[in-house]
């Protein structure tokens, strides 16, 4: 079971929807990932395996976390699926 943090700047609207979409993808594809939701402050003390965020924040977060996924269109489940699978492949 991998632990993922879904976050954005303020951690309210867009990352909330991103979390819902990520959860849908995880459920439909029975991926072994559990998500939690937060903002940039939630990174402090985060001990999980990956962070899912908006694409424009990815480069900023990448050096600070084990693995960062940046999503360009938060409603695009195909994109989320491809990127989560890349993460899972990297763990094999």
């Amino acid at each position, binding site marked *: 079971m991998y632990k993922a943090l879904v976050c954005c700047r303020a951690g309210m609207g867009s*990352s909330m929807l991103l979390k819902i979409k990520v959860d849908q993808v995880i459920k439909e594809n029975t991926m072994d990932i559990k998500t939690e939701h937060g903002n940039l402050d939630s990174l402090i003390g985060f001990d999980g395996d990956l962070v899912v965020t908006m694409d424009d924040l990815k480069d900023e977060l990448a050096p600070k976390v084990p693995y960062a996924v940046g999503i360009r269109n938060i409603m695009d489940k195909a994109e989320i699926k491809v990127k989560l699978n890349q993460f899972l492949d990297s763990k094999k």
Partner: protein
Amino acid sequence: MLDAILGQVRNTAIIVGTIALIGLLLQKKTMNEIISGTSKTIIGFMIFNIGSDAISAIVTTFTTLFNTGFGIEGVTTQVEVATGMALNTYGTEVALVMVLGFIVNLLVAKYTRFKAIFLTGQHFLYFACVIALVFIAHGFSTPIIVLVGGIILGFCGAALPTLCQPFMNEIVGSDNLAIGHFNTIGYALSGYIGKFVGKVTHYDQESSDSSNVNMPKFFELFRDFVFSVALFMVVLFYVVVIACVINGHMELVQELSGNDIWFIWPLLQGLKFAAAMSVLIYGVRQFIAEITAAFVAISEKYIPDSKPAVDCPAIFPFAPTAVVIGFVGSFLGGLFGMGLMIAFNSSVIMIPAAGICFFSGGTAGVFGNKHGGWKGALLGSFVIGIGLVMLPLLLYPAFSALGISGASFPNVDYNVIGSFIDWLLSLFG
């Protein structure tokens, strides 16, 4: 006993918890999820209250200093603060307007050509505050406020994003996303300003797009919401404290700063404001979470052709530099608007706020950039920035009479639609 029960159900935390409970039941969640989801929603609302109490205290201090230092009434344009105040007094009305708004939004999307489902829960909450307050100011009874207010809110949620749809389709590159941020009138305007700028400057994608502009790295700091609020408030506190000292009110500063040294105290107050804002946002996130999840689940299941209207950062990845240009543009617009209020001897001065400039200004930047490049982004967000500080003047007198003073609701749609309702109601006496 009946009175006691009626009094109890007026508790906003309970109303919010009940909404979450119904949402979870409708989704047929497990017993464990229902119990934990409902409790977490209520706890989230209580955290929000703690944050909003803390922030109100600091805003009171700030306005006291501002009013003493400058001799005019200063009002922050922090929507979260104004909402906190509104919920303390009129929580029941606001919460009920919001829940009916959700239902009406679903119905409108199902049966009319307006297909947006407004998924930004906190914006629904803020708009519910504005609408409820306008009706309360005209002395309507709770059932009317809830019924009419809810219908207006739900209709706006489904219809207003339509204004921005042509631009959204071009920005995102597909027709499956709407903007769920109540500045839609402003964003569409910024989009048209961008088109105009593009025409005048013979815009071509190659050379004028914002992605070719190198913004100083410093501005990237503002991507972190809590940090930008902190920096902004520290600067504002220094400005008002220095104004007080210069104008001979040192004793007030000394009195308020207590044991802290007077010139270190503003730094601490600014940071404390950001701390309180963190708590408040943490609470909003927690109490909106289950309600939004239910809203998403219901709309996806029963209204498959609906279009999700999402919070503005969702479009930031499509033009990240335009976001930063938009922040700068709307902040400059805010300062310009402030200058106008001073020049025209306005009795109230609205002060631009970091959060609103970043999110709303940044989004206006993305819209302006589409056809106008960086110049379109800058001009579009500048104009919106003026609107964000000037428009709250319209409703502020009515709201401050209800006790919501020192903070205001800056977003464009709140004020345009709110003033329109206010005007309509005044026609009927």
